[in-house]
């Protein structure tokens, strides 16, 4: 019996690398979740309308709040009220609609085609990620691969694939960008064209990531920090090219901000105040007054932009003129800097939600599945459940975590510089970028959106935490914390 198990293990080792193993595992787990009825995904929270209208899709039946809509209609004639919508998400949606037309129907769009497009990209990214975190084919590497799958293919993230939220793109590109950099670090294993491909993949993924929506544009900074690790091994020409590419990255972020829909910007702006500053300040009227705003607006505390039953509508021109247009991001930042206690409370609020990655406010199943309204899936959500339950929910902890990682990998980078091992330097750059994401992500979410929909706004924080923990795990398991792995082992 024991021999048979060993024999089977050998066979797996021979035919299936840890990366392929992870892809297989994730393919089964995710495939069941996304494609086998009852299909699961996140239901609409009101944000789909723009994406649908822009891509010529429409709801065929009455809206069923709390339930996933599995099929949409495809507009047959010129769509003359397509709203302006700039997002890299469009690439995926357009591809999915094309595939749907080719293989399924010209009039009905099955959202699973979108899921398929996303899922294939995701599996590719997962393959690279596991490749980057494992080395060799020892049993330990398969365990590592399984852990990676549990982390990245957790349903809380995959559920985005059957919906029109931009987070699906974040999940894929965030994985691919970091994986590409980590693989580059081991570039002695790779041929020149592979290296060039990896650099391109990194730049492409980071570009898509920062242009998904305006709020992620700030993350361009994190990815620039990550890319700085490439510098030591670049030629002069390479450095210039990289500099150009990074400038493009910043530009992509800026374009995403500039082309954000004014309506959405107003919504976020209003809620950054009503569900941010006003919510946590003990005396919000005073804060408004000292900021040059009519203190009576403190009475809008806790409301949202589209809330029904308010005494005054945020859409009215006076509300816009005397409240929403009276403050900008600088106003908010100034306020938070001068009220560190309030800021701390808001950040703790964010920290509390950072690891609660499964969006509980919307349902996961279609109405036809027979499950209740807002029913949640529990399939393959072990990792997110554990993180949500046990991860310390304090902003201070995230700061300390980032400091700890920086310290740890700075030691490695110092060694790397002395021993001329670029990989250690690069890893430090990646860790620094990820740590930066933790902080930037939470600060932006709180300043820009207050406490609304934190699970979605903090998506990149959760992913960066996962990456940091996995990198540490991989380094500890492989003993590569302070030294590069011997060349050739990876193959």
């Amino acid at each position, binding site marked *: 019996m024991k021999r048979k198990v060993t024999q089977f293990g050998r066979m797996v080792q021979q035919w299936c690398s840890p990366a392929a193993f992870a892809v297989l595992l994730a393919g089964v787990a995710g495939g069941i979740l996304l494609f086998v009825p009852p299909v699961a995904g996140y239901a609409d929270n009101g944000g789909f309308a723009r994406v649908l209208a822009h891509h010529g899709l429409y709801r065929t039946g009455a809206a069923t709040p709390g339930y996933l809509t599995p099929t949409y209609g495809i507009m047959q004639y010129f769509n003359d009220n397509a709203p302006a919508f700039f997002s890299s998400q469009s690439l995926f949606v357009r591809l999915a609609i094309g595939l749907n037309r080719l293989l399924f129907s010209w009039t009905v769009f099955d959202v699973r085609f979108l899921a398929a497009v996303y899922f294939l990209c995701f599996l590719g990214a997962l393959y690279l990620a596991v490749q980057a975190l494992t080395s060799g084919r020892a049993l330990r590497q398969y365990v590592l691969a399984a852990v990676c799958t549990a982390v990245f293919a957790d349903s809380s993230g995959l559920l985005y694939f059957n919906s029109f939220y931009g987070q699906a793109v974040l999940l894929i590109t965030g994985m691919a960008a970091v994986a590409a950099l980590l693989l580059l670090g081991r570039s002695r294993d790779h041929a020149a064209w592979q290296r060039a491909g990896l650099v391109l993949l990194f730049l492409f993924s980071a570009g898509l990531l920062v242009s998904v929506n305006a709020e992620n544009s700030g993350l361009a900074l994190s990815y620039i920090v990550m890319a700085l690790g490439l510098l030591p091994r670049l030629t002069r020409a390479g450095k210039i090219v990289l500099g150009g590419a990074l400038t493009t990255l910043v530009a992509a972020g800026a374009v995403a901000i500039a082309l954000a829909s004014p309506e959405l910007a107003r919504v976020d702006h209003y809620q950054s105040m009503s569900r941010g500053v006003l919510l946590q300040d*003990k005396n919000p*009227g005073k804060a408004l007054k000292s900021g040059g705003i009519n203190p009576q607006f403190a*009475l809008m505390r806790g409301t949202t932009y589209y809330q029904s039953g308010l005494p005054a509508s945020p*859409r009215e021109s006076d509300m816009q003129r005397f409240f929403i247009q009276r403050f900008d991001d600088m106003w908010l930042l100034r306020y938070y800097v001068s009220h560190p206690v309030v800021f701390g409370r808001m950040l703790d609020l964010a920290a509390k939600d950072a690891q609660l990655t499964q969006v509980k406010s919307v349902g996961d199943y279609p109405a036809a599945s027979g499950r209740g309204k807002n029913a949640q899936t529990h399939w393959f959500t072990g990792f997110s459940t554990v993180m949500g339950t046990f991860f*310390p929910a304090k902003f201070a*902890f995230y700061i*300390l975590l980032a400091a700890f990682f920086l310290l740890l990998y700075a030691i490695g980078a110092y060694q790397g510089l002395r021993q001329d091992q670029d990989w250690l330097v690069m890893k430090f750059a990646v860790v620094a970028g990820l740590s930066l994401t933790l902080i930037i992500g939470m600060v932006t979410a709180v300043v820009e959106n207050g406490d609304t929909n934190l699970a979605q706004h903090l998506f990149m924080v959760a992913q960066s935490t996962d990456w940091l923990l996995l990198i540490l795990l991989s380094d500890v398991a492989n003993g590569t914390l302070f030294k590069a792995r011997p060349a050739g082992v990876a193959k």
Partner: protein
Amino acid sequence: MKGSAGVLLLAAMLFGLWGSGRPVHASEISAAPRVLLVYDSENRQAGGPEQIDALTRTLASLNISVTRQTLLSYRAGTLTTRRFQGVITMVNWPQSRVTNAAYTRDRQAFTGRQLHIGQNLAGDEQRALGSTAQMVTHKQFQLQDPATGAQQVLPFMADHWLLLPAAAGNIGRLDEQGGPRQYAFGLIRGRQAYLPMYSGSGLTGLLSTRLLAQFFTGQAAAQPPVLTLTGVTPVSDLPLLRQTTGYLRDQGIPFAISATMTAENSQLPEHAAYLRTLAQAQLDGGTIFWQVPVIYAADRQTGSMLQRQFTAQISQAVRAMVYPVGVSAPGYWQFDTAFSTALHRADQNLLLPNPTTYTLGRGAPTATYAPGRRTFTAIPWRGENTLTGTGDLTFTSPTALTLSVPATAKRLQSFRRQVQRWPDQTWRSLTDDTTAMTLRAGRHRVTFSARQYQVDGQPATVGLPAAVKAAPQKAATVATGVNRFTRWQGLALLIFILVTLFILTGFLIYGRRIYRNQFRRKGRKP
């Protein structure tokens, strides 16, 4: 046959149930004439929805119960003298030439009062009016009101106008600009009446209302309007609001305020400050109307949500010596059962023009509205500035001339200019009202009669509540055992993990040194 009888019985029962579900005030229904309003199209481009809204609000202010329908949805047999005392045919889109044979037949057989508004006057209607209509094109007219001497130049009409020659007894006269011809504006002949156009404001509105009052209620006594401040919300600029009401007090002008309220965030000093300002407005001679909140999406819960908000807000207001005596709402609130229930919680209503910033969603639409005891219809005061020849506007139905409360010092200037523009205007004072008007909010009943507010039957004092200082109150920390534990364990875990990680890092570095020393050659290098 048997089956259809059963269906009919069921329908009758349902109808009966539906009827009994609405709050009905015996005093108002018996007198209120019922009128059917049939319009051909909304014709959004030409501002049709606003006109229909203004017309229904005016009818409500005349205490007329109105049922509105489009021409195409009219079903044969609807228009009978048993159900309706009158019918209004409104043509908003003459080019469309929409017809409904069933409606034409029923209307011709109808012996009640018939009013036609707009073009496409049918042959039998013309005959009933007793004169032949003339088609007039490309003319500009001056509208005259011989009764008061008011006049207004109407905008140039490139459209075709179907007009009847002026005759004795017509309401308003149209004088051709630069020509000798005169036409009738409103015309009543027996059971038939005609209006060439409709608009809620200006002299046309004034004359149309007079015609509607004369034609459907038989009386057209002139009454002064109520000056009403609109746009008053908890987030208004309070110092400016105080200045405004103080100014009106100094001018000796009685006024009403249509104010929204909130029961949320009542612990904030701004909440008390708002109610205090309303109490001040009351002292300045103001009467408060409770304005309904902004409803974007109406559904089954809207009715109960409205009731909850209303009860909570009124009881907070009463505590702060603010006594709302009526309910004000946008016009479309008439045509929804949940909304009209909210209106009927007060004897006195104010119907405002429909908002334009959001779609007017109704959860339980209905076609009929039976107005309460007294309904004011709102007309923007600035719209009346085009009138000349009179300094004192009177109306034939309870009317509120509205001005939005100034939000900047500049707008306050313009507010004052508007008041000074009409120095001779007389105003109706609701505080001198002798009829008892009641508002019912849960267990509270606010009544106003003979200059005295009463809450739940007890006389209530009008005054200013004590000003609330912005005292930094400590947020009550309700920490249950579990709560405290989770908070504590989060911190403990944080410290524990950090300490462990630091120790591990130390070990890692230390162990590495040992490991490396194993390979280091002892002694001096060769």
